[in-house]
Each structure stands twice: as structure tokens, then as C-alpha cells.
């Protein structure tokens, strides 16, 4: 098995260079957004809300907020990363280079996941200034962070390959991922819902991701941690299969 490490590094480095150029916008946006959430939900509304499963409301929403950013940033960075060369035509070079499909995915998804994990960490640090954040299971917190970032970057890569225009890049994040995240317990525990809605929520895959991530912080979860982990791994596996099929069939990349 040969591995084109120079090729993977070149793409990874090139992708991160774009991030570095816009580092202030990229990092300031989540910092400001998170601060606003804490001012509104933590200080203004949160003080009037009771604790959720023994966790102050402001602290309770931290994992959900990080997840929300992780989803959107991973999808955006990975989809844009592969869509843009398709749009400008520079994809010709990647297709004609001695890099295997696995290496291309590794480089693009790796770069996108790196960015979103950085942003997730910045949000976590910012949150620390506003609310008492506790991390009971640091290993699992990091594991969920990486797994989610990588999975959604893969998902973003698929969207980027599928998209035929800039609008299509936005469609899935806006119409599917953001609503599912808001309804997936980012700001509440699904235990708070009436039983019918609670059952309905269990069909939302995002519930499992947020629940598992929150468990790593506070030891409390909506669904069993094993189920969360399996669901996350399942989604990861599904994305891998689709990416594999894309390269095998040449779908929207090659004639």
C-alpha cells in the first residue's frame, strides 16, 4: 500500500491556509454568537429557568451549542472545500494527480474537521467565561468531538460533490441540519417534551449526538450512551459508504 503523504499534506495545508486568511472572521463569529447565546439564555432567561437534571440551564446548553457549530462548520467547510474546485474547474488537477480517493477524502475532510474542532474548542473556552462548565468524561468528550467533526465533514464532502450550485450547498444545512439540531435537544432535554413528541424525537439522529456529547460533560443523557455512540458511528459508516460509492462511480466528479 502506497501513501501519497506529500499530496495529502499539500491539500490539507492549502485548505487550512484559506482558513488562516480569514482566521479573525472564522473565530470571532462563533465567539460573538456564543457570547450572545449566554447573555440571552444564560443571564437574561436562564436565571428564571430551573436547572435541567441538576445542571444550571446556561451550562446545560453548552454541549448543544458546540454541537450546533460543529455540524454547521464541518458541513460548510468540507462542502465548500470540494465544491469550490469543481466550480472554478481546478478540480482537474486533483483528478489528474497521483492521489487515491481515500487520500483526497482524508485531506479535505481532515482539514474541514480540524477547522470545526478549533471552532468548537473556542466556543467551549468562551462558554467557560459565562457559565460553570464541567467535563466529567474528558476522553469521551474529545472522542465525540472528533467523531462528530469527521462525520459531518464527510457529510459536507458528499453535499459538496452533489451540489450543482451555491444555493444547493446551503439547502441541506439550512433545511435539514439546523432544524433537526434545534429540535434535537440542543436547548432542552427531550425528557421535557410530551410523550408523543419525545417518541417522535427519537427518530431524529441529532438527538443521539447531542445526548452523547452532553453525557460526556454532565453524566446525564436523554438516551443511553452506548446507543449514542452506535448512532454516531452508524452515521459515520453511512457517510463513508456514500463517499466510497462516489469515487467508485465517479459520480459528479468524473465522466
Amino acid at each position, binding site marked *: 500500500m*502506497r501513501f*501519497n503523504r*506529500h*499530496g495529502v*499534506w*499539500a*491539500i490539507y*495545508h*492549502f485548505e487550512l*491556509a*484559506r482558513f488562516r*486568511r480569514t482566521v479573525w472572521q472564522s473565530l470571532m463569529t462563533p465567539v460573538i454568537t456564543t457570547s450572545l447565546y449566554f447573555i440571552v439564555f444564560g443571564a437574561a432567561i436562564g436565571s428564571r429557568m430551573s436547572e435541567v437534571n441538576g445542571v444550571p440551564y446556561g451550562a446545560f446548553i453548552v454541549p448543544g451549542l458546540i454541537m450546533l457549530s460543529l455540524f454547521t462548520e464541518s458541513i460548510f467547510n468540507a462542502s465548500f472545500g470540494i465544491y469550490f*474546485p469543481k466550480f*472554478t*474547474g*481546478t478540480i*482537474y*488537477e*486533483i*483528478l*489528474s*494527480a*497521483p*492521489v*487515491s480517493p481515500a487520500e483526497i477524502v482524508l485531506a479535505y475532510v481532515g482539514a474541514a474537521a480540524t477547522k470545526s474542532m478549533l471552532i468548537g474548542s473556542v466556543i467551549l473556552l468562551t462558554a467557560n467565561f459565562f457559565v460553570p462548565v464541567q467535563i466529567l468524561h474528558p476522553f469521551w468528550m474529545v472522542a465525540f468531538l472528533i467523531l462528530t467533526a469527521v462525520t459531518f465533514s464527510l457529510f459536507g464532502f458528499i453535499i459538496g460533490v452533489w451540489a450543482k450550485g451555491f444555493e444547493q450547498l446551503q439547502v441541506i444545512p439550512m433545511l435539514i441540519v439546523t432544524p433537526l439540531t434545534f429540535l434535537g435537544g440542543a436547548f432542552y432535554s427531550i425528557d421535557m417534551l410530551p410523550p408523543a413528541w419525545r417518541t417522535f424525537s427519537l427518530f431524529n439522529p441529532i438527538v443521539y449526538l447531542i445526548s452523547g456529547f452532553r453525557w460526556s460533560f454532565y453524566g446525564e443523557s436523554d438516551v443511553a450512551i452506548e446507543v449514542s455512540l452506535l448512532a454516531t458511528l452508524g452515521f459515520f459508516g453511512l457517510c463513508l459508504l456514500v463517499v466510497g460509492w462516489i469515487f467508485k462511480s*465517479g459520480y459528479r466528479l*468524473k*465522466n
Partner: protein
Amino acid sequence: MSAILSISGLTKTYASGLQALKKVDLEIRKGEIFALLGPNGAGKTTLISIVCGIVTASSGTVVADGHDIVRDYRDARMKIGLVPQELTTDTFETVWATVTLSRGLFGRAPNPALVEKVLRDLSLWDKRKDKIMTLSGGMKRRVMIAKALAHEPSILFLDEPTAGVDVELRRDMWAMVRRLRDEGVTVILTTHYIDEAEEMADRIGVIRKGELILVEEKATLMRKLGRKQMTLQLQEPMQAIPEGLSDWNLTLRDGGHGLEYSFDVHEEKSGIPELLRRMGELGIGFKDLNTEQSSLEDIFVSLVSTRTESAS
């Protein structure tokens, strides 16, 4: 000389049903400059795209410098550089960043000294820190070439390298291609400009409707298909070609003021002395005489149009 690129039985049918290539066989010799000529839509770009791995062939094999382009794609692609027809660049990146990316992509370890040499050779060194979007079209074309050369390929494809390029850059480009050949790089270029092929190529291939209809040494081709025209400026205009001159292939020009005789240069006898003698006998005088050898363009046009006629 041995073949550096062997294409055999290459066929491509697109999903739309368009058959872009029909069983193409072609051998490119090491170190030569090969020009692929053909009208738009003939299959030139498809052929190049398959060799470079951008398009998947329907059938057939390609071996580049001893490596099958599918089975052994890593080694094959490391040998190949491609300058595509379209100016597709990473507009927001600097020249340096994009050329460095190309080198890495093709599996080569970073080598700033080599990137510097490539940029200097293409007069891009002063622009290395500029964003590509700020460059002129000609400069962008140079960037594309720099990208293709960054990994030191032994086979270079230039797809319409001088389309829409000014005269100066065109000359620079030709000089660069010759320099590359001197360094041992095999160059395959496609072009619309027949004078370009005539100027540059060692061998010429003509492709039409997905078929390679001819591959020939340029010199042989010129000789084989080259026709010469001799035009005589007549003293007295003539209404029709006299009976006595019917043995020669003659046409009247300029409303009877000129008489044109067309002949094959490789025929043993041109027939000129006999023609002039006969004209003297018939008392047809002429003021001036001039001969012209047909260019590759004429050859090309006649080749493509004859085949079209015979095909339809």
C-alpha cells in the same frame, strides 16, 4: 526511439451517447514534440483527459513511461503534467501557494529551489506573492504551465496552449516548449493553429470525429501531401484554357489574367519545362511567374474536408 506513451484501442463513449473516441492507437516517442490537430469536437481533449486520469476510458489501454494509467496510476501520473485549455486557477491564492500545492499533489517533496526555477523560467518570479486574480490572462496561462511543471514531469500535455494568447507570449511559449524538449521532456500539444504545429512539431497526428486519421513525421507529411502552385501572369487575358494545354492541371485566375498550375512536389517530374515550352509553341506570353508551396494548413483543410466528403 522508444515509445514513452502507448495508447491502444482507446474508446470513449459519453453517457450522452456521444462517441468521442473510436479505437485510437497512438505511440508517442520519447523526447519528441507531437502535435495533435483537429477541428473542434474531434476528441483531442477527451484523449488528453483520459491519459491524465480526468476521464475514464470506455475501453483500451494507455501506458505512460512503462506504467499502465489505471493499474499503476500513481507512477503513471507522476510522470505526466497537464496544462488544460481553460484558464482554471485558484483565484484567491498566490502564485507561490498554487504552484507549491501542485508539486505536493503529485507526490513530490517540497523543493522551494525548484519552484523558484520554474517561476523564473516563466517570468513569474516577481509575481510570486500576487494573488492569481490580479494577474493578466497571459500571466495566468504561465501559472498554469508552472503548475504542470512543478513536479518535473517527463510527459507534458499542452491543450491549446496558445489559444487567445498574444504574439509575444506565443513566441515565449514556443521557446519554452523547445527548451523542455532539450531537457528531455516529451511534449504533446493540441492546437487549432496549424502554423504552430508546423513551427513546433516533430510529428503530427490528425484527429477527426474521434478517429486518428493520420500520424506522420511533419517533414514527410509536408512532402507527401505538399502541393506546389505555379502562377503565371499572362500578357493577354484568356477566356478559356486552350486545347493544347489540357495535359496539365490548370486553372484560370484573376478573370483570365493569371494561369495557375498545381502539381505534387514529390512527383518525379514537375511538368513545368514542358508546360512552358508548349506555351511558347502556342504563342502564350507571360510577364511574371511565381511558385508557392502549400502550407500545413492547406494540407490539413484538404485532408479533413476530403475525409468528410468520403464519409458522407
